[in-house]
């Protein structure tokens, strides 16, 4: 299996950002969509 060259990241600014927020938001929306669908079915 061939893999591409990775991109080096040399610097992380000191921030207050929380990790994985993009994914956490997305999963929350996925859950809400499913709940809406379930409610519509019942």
């Amino acid at each position, binding site marked *: *299996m061939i*893999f*591409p060259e*990775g*991109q*080096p*990241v*040399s610097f*992380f*600014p*000191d*921030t207050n*950002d*929380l*990790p*994985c*927020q*993009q*994914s*956490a*938001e*997305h*999963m*929350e*929306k*996925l*859950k809400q969509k*499913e*709940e809406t669908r379930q409610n519509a079915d019942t």
Partner: protein
Amino acid sequence: MPTPELKNWKYYIADPSKKPSLLFLMLHGCGGNADDIFKFIPLLRNVIKNENFIAVAPDAFWQSCEKADGYQWFDIENNYAKKLFSSPYATLTDAEKEKFANMEKGEKGVVKASETLNCFLDFCQKKFGLKNEQTIIFGYSQGAMQALDMGISRSGKVKKVIGVAGCLIPPDKESFKKRHMVSPDVLLIHGTKDTVIDFHAAKQTEEILKQNGFNVTLCAQKGMGHGRGEESRSFWLKTAWYTAKTMASKPTLSKINTFFAQRQRR
């Protein structure tokens, strides 16, 4: 059946002037990407001083249906249902078990994803001169599910698998037996108020792993959700702390004191 293609990955070396002693493979959650999970690095850096690690984070294989810069390791978007993670696997209907089967098998399943990722991990170990016993696989949400699957199905045992807010896919003992090749130590971190991937799924995962002789610890984060928003700051700080304990033999004392002082003030 082809295995999925890994197109993009990033890496960070904590101290480029020294030989690294640890490889930290980070698998983001559904809808996220390498940059999303790399935001964990500053939190980790605050509690580790004496471990020179390399963090590697690929973008997942399949573009998210709804986010142009979001990806998923296997098709959870078309198969997600809250009930799958909140009910015992044995009580699910055939249609519900089919959703798990869709996430597990086929071109867009977790099994095929693990094949590519384990080859990729071999590639990284060779590139950076590190071995399985110097490797930790860390995943969040769907990334945790993927980390668990690749960790147990790998030909060699890594140092640890850390799964945050995730579970086995499926959390079923019979399916597990078919995948089980090696038994790395496992750390599960999960909020007890997680309404996306219910805490129950982590309990099921812990039970299956324990029954199969794993050294597994489930750190239940009381009152915490899936990890979204400012109210999850404590969840992420604790995750960094638990991860640091795994990575470094002694996380820095001053940082530990700061961490616990912040907790007490809340």
